[in-house]
């Protein structure tokens, strides 16, 4: 009896621990995430507006991200992980671009989604970095470098206008978000049940088999719900956030490490 109680406690601890161990990616607060604070609010706003207009015209998602530090990670790894975490670009098009600037590391990268690799090639990305952004950064004009670099990216993308400017495409809210909510609900239910079961076992009044049966039943139910959620690939409509840009989110795009990196 006591052993089962201990087991339940361990289960609770493990579940809580695994729920807490989430990789700390920065939040995608908008199209311009200036965590290194190198842009003035005004610049940030005009840049956001420009990128927003651009997406509405082309569905390409371009995001600018500045960070004080990469915490020792190579910028290529970091940019790719972040790109995938934010899922920039539309699903099935993978047409996202992420410009990463790490202020203290003096490193920057243009990470290109699969779908735009042919337009913004590595060589072009390299060119933008070395001929437009880095000279500005070296001269201490951080803000101007970011703005000019972003404009160059848009110019290159616009030169080869993609034949895809559909407005009512079903894309949007990443399924991973839905999955997390379901997972979280499931974990809290299991924890609650386990707690109750532990209590019951400690009081020695309950029936062990009943408590265990309840736990297994709940787990099974939750698992079935979870699997149906995942299989369904539940994509929300993007139209909800399409009008105003308050709740910008990635469209489910992916990147395989295209683009170029540089230093200044």
């Amino acid at each position, binding site marked *: 009896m006591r052993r089962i109680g201990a087991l339940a406690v361990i289960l609770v601890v493990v579940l809580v621990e695994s729920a807490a161990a989430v990789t700390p990616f920065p939040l995608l607060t908008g199209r311009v995430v200036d965590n290194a604070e190198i842009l003035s609010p005004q610049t940030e706003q005009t840049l956001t507006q420009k990128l927003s207009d651009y997406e509405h015209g082309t569905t390409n998602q371009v995001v600018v991200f500045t960070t004080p530090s990469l915490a020792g990670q*190579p910028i*290529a*790894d970091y940019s*790719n992980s972040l790109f995938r975490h934010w899922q920039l670009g539309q699903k099935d098009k993978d047409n996202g671009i992420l410009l990463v600037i790490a202020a203290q590391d003096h490193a920057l990268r243009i990470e290109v989604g699969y779908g735009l690799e042919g337009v913004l*090639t*590595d*060589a072009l*990305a*390299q060119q933008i970095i070395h001929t437009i952004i880095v000279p500005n950064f070296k001269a201490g004009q951080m803000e101007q470098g970011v703005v000019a670099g972003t404009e160059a990216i848009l110019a290159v993308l616009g030169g080869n206008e993609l034949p895809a400017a559909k407005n009512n495409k079903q894309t949007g809210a990443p399924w991973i978000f839905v999955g997390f909510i379901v997972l979280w609900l499931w974990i809290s239910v299991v924890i609650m049940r386990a707690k109750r079961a532990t209590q019951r076992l400690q009081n020695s009044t309950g*029936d062990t*088999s*009943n408590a*265990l*049966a309840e736990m*297994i*039943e709940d787990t*099974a139910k939750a*698992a*079935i719900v979870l*699997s149906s959620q995942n299989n369904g690939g539940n994509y929300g409509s993007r139209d909800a956030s399409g009008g105003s840009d308050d709740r910008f989110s990635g469209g489910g795009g992916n*990147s*395989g*490490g*295209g*683009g*170029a*990196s540089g230093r200044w």
Partner: protein
Amino acid sequence: MGFGTKKWLLIIGVVLVLFFVTGINTIPRLDEGVNASWAQVENQYQRRIDLIPNLVETVKGYANFEKSTLTDVINARANATKATISPDMLNNPEAMKNFEQAQGQLSSALSRLMVVVEKYPDLKANEQFLSLQSQLEGTENRIAVARKDYIETVRGYNTAVRTFPTRIWAWIYGVQPKQTFAAKAGAENAPVVKF
């Protein structure tokens, strides 16, 4: 009494249902994932192989460029072209080892070439060379990403093959764990602490 038995029957029933619901598609689905991520690995390595003839041509044009470095690259490329793995050979450690060896040799031959290039300022300023260099860098980065993804999908697959209840399905399908890459690409660049 009757209630207790019913409970236990329910448990067994739920476990059985779980087993069937979760198991039957897991292995084939993970298998497809592994194949897809392997295809991406080979794609990116192929892309690197395709870049090399142009690179060699560009470098060759420079008089008295160290011949041995170039021949190393050409030979390593030839070996790498031969070492390919089809998806059904992914559980073969020997094939994987050959593949790794051939690609690894090409990697080191290429990085030696890039070191030698440092001695030729004219070449370094050549526009075509710069373009090739950035493409090569981009390809190396894509290889790293593809390898990472492959390691990830194989881990998922092998976990399923080795753990209950999917292990039973693996036994039913008669599948083996797949080979993965020994070390992460770029691991050799990890900072070394010396005392």
